[in-house]
């Protein structure tokens, strides 16, 4: 099965095209792919419990789409509660996933 990595390094709330990442993930899943959605840098601002983008991402999370947030980025920003469906992750987990190979990597 094809696997795709989407990395969000920006606060998706700040950009009018931020929510389009969710659409991209959904469309890839609809076409039968697995999606790794990794939040890092200011992207983790969308992981905090009850944030607007976190609610949207948690609705996506499930079979075919895994949503993860970088631990170092979260700690730096004082994010100590993640929205359900978003898992705390690490650069090691990202490197492991990349070493297994993705069909493509889309870095936002």
């Amino acid at each position, binding site marked *: 099965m094809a696997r795709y990595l989407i990395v969000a390094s920006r606060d998706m709330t700040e950009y009018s095209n931020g929510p389009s990442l969710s659409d991209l993930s959904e469309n890839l899943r609809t076409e039968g792919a697995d999606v790794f959605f990794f939040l*890092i840098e200011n992207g983790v601002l969308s992981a905090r419990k009850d944030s607007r983008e976190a609610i949207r991402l948690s609705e996506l999370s499930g079979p075919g789409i895994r949503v993860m947030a970088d631990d170092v980025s979260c700690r730096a920003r004082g994010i100590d509660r993640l929205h359900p469906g978003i898992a705390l992750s690490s650069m090691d987990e990202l490197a492991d996933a990349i070493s297994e190979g993705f069909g493509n990597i889309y870095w936002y």
Partner: protein
Amino acid sequence: MLQEEAEDGILTKKVRKVAIVISTGSYMREAPTTVLRLAEKLLERDIEVNIWAFEEAVTLTNREQVEHSEPPSLRKVIGDKHAYVGKFIDQLLRAGLHTSKLDWVTCILCAQERGVEHHQMNGVIVGTLGDLWKFVRSADQVIAIPAYR
């Protein structure tokens, strides 16, 4: 393109080479830090890493970077001095001698524009736009960090 390899008769895909394209300098952006973090982890996994530095990213490897003292009135809160990014790139390039290979190429046009062509640290190659596309062509995975504003 991922290479397929037979392991115990089972075809598996292996990533051997990752190309990373970065266009931002440090000190006002976290992207270079992320690239260093990721490069370290990929090298640990015996993956060759080719970094192509474009636009402001050519200043990351300026060898003239030095530690400086912080303003006295702020030392209580921000310390006496801080690390500079070039030191960590130098150490990653050296780590690449003993693990998998790290190539760091800076765009000659961008380096000339910024007056840093002759100030690149040892181990960094001043290359061309052609090198970018050679890296992309030969990589199993391409990671391009956007220079958003």
